[in-house]
C-alpha cells in the first residue's frame, strides 16, 4: 500500500492545479450551461401558447415532452436518493420503490379529497420526506448489520411487504382503487398545473432537482459522505478508523429514503393519482438501472442514467418502435411490422443490465474510484500491488519512483 500511494503522488506532481479542482470547475461550467438550457426549454411552447410567436422548436417541445421532462425530474430525485444508499454507502437496496410508495401515499392521504385533509404541498414536501426517512430508520435499524446480499434480500422483502400493506389496508389507502384527486401545489392563488399545464410542474421539478443536487453535493463532501465511501470501500477498515458504521449506514438509508419521499410527493402531485401497482419490484429495479447505467456513485452519471432510461421508456422506445414498424412495411418484413418494442421493455432492461455488467460495470459516467476497482488491470495501483506480491525486488529496480518512503 505504501508504494501505491507514492505512485499516485508522483503522477500528480508537476500540475499547477490539482486534477480534482480542475474537474470540479469544468463540471460547474457544464452544470451552468445545462441549467440555463433547461430553464429555457419550455420557452418556445410558452410563446406558442401565448400566441406571440411560433419558434421552429415549438412543435417538438410540446406539452407531452415537457410533461415527460417533469416526470423525469421525479425519477432523477429517486435516482439521486438511491445513489446515496447504493453508490455512496455501497448498500444494495432492491426495495427502494417501497419508500417511493410511502412518500407518494403520505401526500396522497394527507392532501387529497380522499380523507378531506388538505395539507399544503410545500409543508407535505418536507413532512413526507420526514415520514419516509422515519420508515427508513425503522426498516434499517434492525437489518443494516446484515451484509451485502442478505441486506439486498431484506430490502427486497420490504419492497414486497409495503405494497401488500397498501393494497390490503383499504381503510387508509383505498386499496386497489388507489387515491385520486390529489391536490396540486399552489403559490398563493396560483395553482401549479391548473388546466393540465405542465410547464409549472416542469419548473417545480427543476427547482426540486436543483435543491437535492445541492444537498447531495454538500453531503458527499461532508464528513458523513466521506464516511459512507469509506464504508463502501472497506467496512472493517472504516470501523477501525473510528467510524460508527451502524449510525453511518443508517443515515445513508434514512436520507436516501427521505429523498424518495420528496420525489413521491412531487410525483403524486403531478400525476394526481396513486395506486399500489406503481411501486412493485420492477419499479425498484428501474431506479436501480438508472443508478447503475449512469454510474454508481457519480451524481451527474446517475442523473444522466435517470434521463436516458425514463425518456427511453416513455418517448424514445415508442418513436423507435414506429420507425422499426415503418421500416418493416417498407421492406415487407412481417417480423419488423409486428415487433412491439414498448411492450418488451423488460427484455431491453434485462439485456442492458447484463451487457453493462459484462462490458461497462462502472456505468456511462463512472465514479473514478469505482472505475479503478472494476478495471484493475489498467491502473498503476494494481500493477504496483501485483509486483509487490510476486516480485518485490525486481519492481524496485525497474521503477525507482516506488522505492521512496520505505
Amino acid at each position, binding site marked *: 500500500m505504501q508504494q501505491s500511494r507514492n505512485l499516485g503522488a508522483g503522477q500528480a506532481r508537476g500540475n499547477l492545479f490539482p486534477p480534482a479542482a480542475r474537474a470540479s470547475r469544468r463540471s460547474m461550467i457544464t452544470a451552468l450551461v445545462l441549467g440555463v438550457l433547461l430553464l429555457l426549454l419550455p420557452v418556445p411552447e410558452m410563446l406558442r401558447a401565448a400566441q406571440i410567436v411560433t419558434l421552429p422548436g415549438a412543435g417538438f417541445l410540446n406539452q407531452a415532452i415537457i410533461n415527460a421532462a417533469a416526470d423525469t425530474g421525479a425519477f432523477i430525485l429517486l435516482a439521486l436518493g438511491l445513489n446515496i444508499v447504493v453508490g455512496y454507502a*455501497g448498500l*444494495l437496496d*432492491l426495495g427502494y420503490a417501497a419508500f417511493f410508495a410511502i412518500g407518494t401515499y403520505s401526500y396522497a392521504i394527507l392532501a387529497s379529497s380522499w380523507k378531506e385533509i388538505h395539507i399544503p404541498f410545500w409543508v407535505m414536501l418536507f413532512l413526507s420526506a420526514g415520514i419516509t426517512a422515519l420508515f427508513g430508520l425503522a426498516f434499517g435499524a*434492525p*437489518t443494516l448489520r*446484515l*451484509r*451485502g*446480499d*442478505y441486506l*439486498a*434480500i*431484506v430490502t*427486497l*422483502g*420490504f419492497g*414486497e*411487504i409495503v405494497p*401488500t*400493506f397498501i*393494497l*390490503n389496508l383499504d381503510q387508509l389507502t383505498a386499496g386497489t382503487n388507489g387515491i385520486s384527486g390529489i391536490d396540486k401545489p399552489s403559490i398563493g392563488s396560483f395553482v401549479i398545473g391548473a388546466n393540465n399545464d405542465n410547464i409549472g410542474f416542469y419548473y417545480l421539478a427543476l427547482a426540486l432537482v436543483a435543491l437535492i443536487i445541492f444537498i447531495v453535493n454538500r453531503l458527499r463532501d461532508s464528513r458523513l459522505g466521506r464516511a459512507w465511501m469509506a464504508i463502501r470501500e472497506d467496512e*472493517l477498515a472504516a470501523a477501525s478508523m473510528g467510524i460508527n458504521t451502524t449510525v453511518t449506514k443508517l443515515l445513508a438509508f434514512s436520507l436516501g429514503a427521505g429523498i424518495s419521499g420528496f420525489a413521491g410527493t412531487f410525483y403524486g402531485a403531478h400525476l394526481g393519482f396513486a395506486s399500489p401497482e406503481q411501486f412493485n*419490484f420492477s419499479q425498484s*429495479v428501474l431506479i*436501480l438501472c438508472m443508478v*447503475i447505467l449512469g454510474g454508481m456513485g457519480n451524481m451527474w452519471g446517475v442523473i444522466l442514467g435517470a434521463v436516458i432510461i425514463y425518456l427511453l421508456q416513455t418517448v424514445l422506445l415508442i418513436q423507435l418502435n414506429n420507425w422499426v414498424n415503418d421500416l418493416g412495411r417498407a421492406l415487407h418484413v412481417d417480423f419488423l411490422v409486428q415487433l412491439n418494442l414498448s411492450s*418488451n421493455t*423488460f*427484455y431491453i*432492461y*434485462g*439485456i*442492458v*443490465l*447484463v451487457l453493462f*455488467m*459484462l462490458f461497462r*460495470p462502472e456505468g456511462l459516467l463512472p465514479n473514478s474510484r469505482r472505475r479503478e*476497482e*472494476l478495471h484493475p488491470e489498467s491502473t498503476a495501483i494494481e500493477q504496483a500491488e501485483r509486483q509487490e506480491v510476486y516480485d518485490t525486488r525486481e519492481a524496485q529496480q525497474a521503477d525507482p519512483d516506488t522505492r521512496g518512503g520505505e
Partner: protein
Amino acid sequence: MAFHFDLILLLQQLINGISKGSVYALIALGYTMVYGIIELINFAHGDIFMLGSFTAISALELFGVNTKAPANETLKDPVVVVAVLFLSLVITMVAMGLLGVLVERVAYRPLRNAPKLAPLISAIGVSYILQNAGETWRGPSTVNFPAVFVEPLLQIPTLDPSRFLTIRSKSILILVVSLILMALLTQFVQRTKMGKAMRATALDRETATLMGINVNMTIALTFFIGASLAGAGGLLYGMFIRGVQFQLGFQAGLRAFTAAVLGGIGNIPGAMLGGFLIGLVEALSDNYLQSQWTQAVVFGVLILILVFRPSGLLGQRVAEKV
C-alpha cells in the same frame, strides 16, 4: 373474527403445505448450491423454474398428451403414465440444466472476480430476460397445464363419520419424486468424486484449483444440477396447480430463496427443511389469514430469520473473511 378450531381442516392444510413445500425445497436446493459455491444469489433461478414448467408442457405434448383435453380425458394405462412422466421429467431436467449452464457461462462466469454487486445485478438482468422469454413463448395469461392422468383421491376416514381427510394422489407423487431427487442429490454430493470436488470448491476455490480440480467445470456442474432440479420442480408444480404463468418464477423463486435462507444458505439439508417449512407457513397463512397477506407473511418470516438468526436453522455461523 370467530375462530373455530378444526383439526381436519388443519391436517388438510398441512398436507397441502408439505406438497407445495417439496417443490419449494427442490427450487431452494438450486439457490443454496449456487450460493454455497460462488456466493451469488441467482435471481434467474426462479425463472428457470417457470421455463421448466413451460418446457414440461411441450415435453408432454411430444409424448402425445393432449394439452387441450379436459381433465377426465387423459392417459389411462398406468405404465404409459409412468413412462411419459419419467421421460418428460428427464427432458425438462436436461433442458433446464443446459439453460442454467448457459446462463452461468454468459452472465456470471466473466464476472467471477468482479465486486459482488456485479454478478447480482447481472442475475437480475437475466431474470428479466428469461421472464420475457417466457411471456413471448406462452403469452401473458395463465397457461393450462395438462392433467396427464385422472388422479384417484385417497379418502381417509376420520373420527367424524361425515367427513374425510382427502389426499390427492398427485401430492403423494410430488412428495415421492422430490424425496427421491433429494436423496440422489445428497448421495451425489456426499459419495461421488464430483460431489467431493463441489464441496472442495465451495470451501476454497483457490486451494481446490491447486488440488487439480477443474473449478470451471465444477461450477458449471453445480448450475446444471441446480437448474435441473428447478426444472423438475416446474413439472411437478405445473401438474399440481394445473396453471402456469410467466411471472410465476419471481414469486416462487422468492419463496424458495426464503426457504434456502431459513434452512441456512449453502446447506443442502437446510434447504429441504426450509422448503417444507415455507410450504407449511404459506398453507397456514392462506387458510387462517387471507391469502393476500401470504406474501407479507413469508417475507416477514424471511426478515425475522435474517435479523435474529442469519445463519439459518441448520447453518453454522461463519466468521467474516477479512
